[in-house]
């Protein structure tokens, strides 16, 4: 063997091999050749390309985070893990398909293009400039490496180029738009003949045999769902707060703190004269200042000189404002002034200001007694909040260790509450919390004599529960459901009798008997409905939509009927009026936009579906 290679090494074959190797390396790169054999675990294969376990897990993690962040009170026990995994799997497969498709078609994006995209994205910019640090840290937050992010960006961009191309190029012909608009604004004239259930009600009868048969044939309909009787403890910040002692000292401290906060809310009314910075600013400023010293009116000078036109009109008045409204230099000057005093020139980015303090408005200072209940509640809740976390972990420990709720209840001074008949669907609070109900029906709690975990069912309210008794689902006895079955069967027979009657009438009408004669035989009258629109709700939605499904009459009328339990309605369609399209240019163009957007979406959906149908997808 070795001998063979040595002798061949001098031959042409070896040279060809070397050339091929070099070519391969340069075309596909080292990475591809190594990765091809890396053997990372995969969850699916799309057209021979792997979706790796690592990517799948990370996407699942991200999806969980996203769902949690959308909840009011994030609670992992509420997540439907199977659903999440399914969704993520589907979306990764779709992603892989679309990525391959973009690459197959030759959509490319050079490294430089990717750089350009990244540097132009606002989330990677600080003060309008791309920042490498911001970029790296944001990418890390997404749980990706930089290379991986660039690849993902590139893939997404190319997919979007195709999607946008398919969707934005869609159009509808003017003719189609006109047709749809005509259909939508079409009206119809028809008459109706209502056969009431009272006509047939005496003819139906439900026998004991019928009931028995129905009961035997539909066992699922009479199953009573599985239920549990439960006991639970509630630990809440609210309840804890009621028993928290609040000392007078603490109240007094809090009151004073509140007062000092209110002080900061003092408002001051200022007037100013603004001189914009510029060549003559200093001169103008001195002129105004000397006029002020000579006792000229501030308001008049503001009207004459101020470069702030809005306030100038009002003699410089700026109205009341609290702290944090004006620029710091302006604010400092304003708060140093006595009432009526005028400041030295203050420079801000607008120019120079001469400021006068006109009035000071203090925030209302409530009395201690008036604030007392509110402050007490506030302090108690804060203390209870700290107490709550301590007690909750204590409760978790005890409830985990004990096969009952009595001990935890005594230990934490809580009251055991009970309720019967909680189904898997849950019930009133706290069992409207899906996570709690799911735990109740978990094997450990249902059969294992364990308590549930301590679950925070809402903010500041934690519950631990256990099952007192488990009632498996059972089938109700015939006696318990006889009335219910009888009603069902009666209604069904009435509906049948009505439709029988209606079909007879239709047959006579289609056979050419005069509508009036038929109506007279039944002792009822036709009612006319004219110019009824497609979305009308009179005489009823059901009748209208049936009338719009009927074929147009060539001559005379076409007949059909629609029925329910109360009555069957015979419809005689007399004429169809095409909606007018004239003079409705704007609705025509808006319907065109709508239809074209819709057909774009439809086309892209078909595009993706076609890729999926043609792909080889394996789920491991």
């Amino acid at each position, binding site marked *: 063997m070795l001998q063979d290679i040595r002798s061949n090494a001098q031959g042409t074959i070896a040279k060809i091999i070397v050339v091929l190797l*070099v*070519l391969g390396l340069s075309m596909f790169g080292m990475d591809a050749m190594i990765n091809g054999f890396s053997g990372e675990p995969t969850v699916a294969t799309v057209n021979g390309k792997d979706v790796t376990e690592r990517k799948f897990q990370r996407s699942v993690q991200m999806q969980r985070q996203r769902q949690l962040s959308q909840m009011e009170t994030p609670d992992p026990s509420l997540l439907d893990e199977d659903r999440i995994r399914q969704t993520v799997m589907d979306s990764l497969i779709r992603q892989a398909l679309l990525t391959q498709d973009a690459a197959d*078609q030759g959509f490319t*994006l050079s490294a430089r293009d990717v750089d350009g995209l990244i540097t132009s994205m606002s989330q990677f910019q600080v003060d309008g400039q791309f920042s490498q640090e911001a970029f790296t840290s944001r990418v890390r937050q997404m749980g990706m490496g930089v290379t991986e992010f660039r690849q993902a960006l590139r893939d997404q961009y190319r997919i979007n180029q195709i999607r946008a191309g398919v969707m*934005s*190029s869609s159009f509808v012909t003017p003719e189609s738009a006109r047709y749809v608009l005509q259909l939508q604004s079409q009206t119809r004239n028809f008459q109706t003949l209502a056969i009431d259930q009272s006509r047939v009600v005496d003819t139906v009868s439900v026998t004991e045999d019928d009931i028995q048969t129905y009961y035997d044939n539909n066992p699922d309909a009479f199953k009573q769902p599985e239920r549990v009787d439960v006991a639970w403890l509630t630990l809440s910040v609210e309840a804890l707060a009621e028993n928290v002692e609040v000392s007078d000292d603490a109240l007094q401290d809090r009151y004073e703190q509140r007062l000092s906060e209110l002080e900061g809310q003092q408002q001051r009314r200022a007037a100013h004269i603004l001189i914009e910075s510029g060549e003559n600013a200093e001169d103008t400023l001195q002129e105004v200042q000397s006029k002020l010293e000579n006792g000229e009116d501030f308001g008049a000078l503001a009207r004459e000189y101020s470069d702030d036109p809005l306030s100038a009109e009002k003699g410089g008045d700026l109205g009341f404002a609290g702290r944090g409204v004006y620029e710091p230099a302006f604010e400092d000057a304003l708060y140093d002034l006595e009432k009526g005093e005028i400041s030295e020139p203050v420079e801000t980015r607008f120019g120079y200001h001469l400021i006068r303090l006109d009035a000071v408005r203090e925030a209302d200072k409530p009395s201690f007694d008036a604030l007392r209940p509110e402050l007490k509640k506030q302090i108690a809740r804060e203390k209870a909040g700290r107490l709550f976390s301590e007690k909750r972990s204590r409760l978790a420990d005890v409830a985990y260790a004990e096969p009952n709720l009595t001990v935890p209840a005594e230990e934490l001074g809580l009251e055991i509450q009970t309720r019967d008949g909680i189904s898997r669907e849950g019930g009133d609070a706290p069992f409207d919390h899906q996570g709690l109900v799911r735990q109740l029906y978990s094997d450990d709690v249902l059969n294992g004599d364990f308590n549930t975990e301590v679950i925070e069912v809402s903010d500041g309210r934690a519950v631990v529960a256990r099952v007192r008794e488990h009632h498996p689902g059972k089938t109700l006895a015939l006696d318990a459901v006889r009335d219910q079955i009888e009603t069902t069967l009666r209604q069904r027979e009435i509906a049948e009798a009505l439709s029988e009657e209606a079909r007879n009438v239709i047959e006579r009408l289609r056979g050419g008997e005069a509508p009036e004669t038929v109506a007279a035989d039944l002792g009822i009258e036709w009612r006319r409905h004219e110019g009824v629109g497609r979305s009308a709700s009179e005489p009823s939605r059901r009748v209208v939509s049936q009338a*719009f499904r009927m074929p147009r009459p060539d001559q005379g009328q076409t007949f059909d009927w629609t029925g329910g339990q109360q009555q069957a309605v015979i419809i005689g369609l007399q004429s169809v009026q095409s909606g007018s399209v004239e003079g409705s240019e704007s609705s025509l163009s808006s319907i*065109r936009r709508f239809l074209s957007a819709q057909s774009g979406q439809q086309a892209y959906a078909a595009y993706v579906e*076609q890729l999926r*149908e043609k792909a080889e997808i394996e789920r491991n």
Partner: protein
Amino acid sequence: MQSEEEQIATIKNWWKRNGTSLLLGVGLALALVFGWQAWQQHQAEQMSAAGSQYQQLLTAATKQQPTDKDAETIRYVAEALRNDFADTPYAVYGTLILAGHQVTEQGKPEAAADSLKWALSRAESGPLKLLVRQRLAQAQFAAEQPDAALATLNEAGETGAFTALYAELEGDILRAQGNAEEAREAYKRASEAASGPTASPMLQLKMADMAIPEDA
């Protein structure tokens, strides 16, 4: 065993016989590699240029309220893509967008049909080709060439996930031709094929108008 001199002599001999061809081989390989890379580089630059033009086109085409300048951009860039980058996928997609613009904004369905014929000849098989073909039939229908439009649809062969779209358009054309019976058949086929995201609410409206029962 050979002595050292003998070995050296053997090597020298071997080199004499094979040296030139070996050097030639290596040289050739290197030339191939660099040539290949240069070609790839050129190709990438072309694609990158075409891609950024296409992006411009998209931006103009997706504006809520396109101006005359946007219309000019669409025409100009689509033309440029078709002339300078005919081998890139961007040319086909660019032409699709141009065709939509020609029908909707310019009211020139004939021109759109010409554009789409070119795109159809360029499109790779697969969903893109099916899409282009459906659009071509639509443009032909708008240009009052219903027979050509039907022929275009029928030439597609297997329509896969596009079946509902094809059948609905076929129904529209047949109905406009006054062929109610076949139009009904076509709408029925569309309704059978349509499900989930590809279902069209307008199809139901049309079917009701043609008095086709919903469960058909």
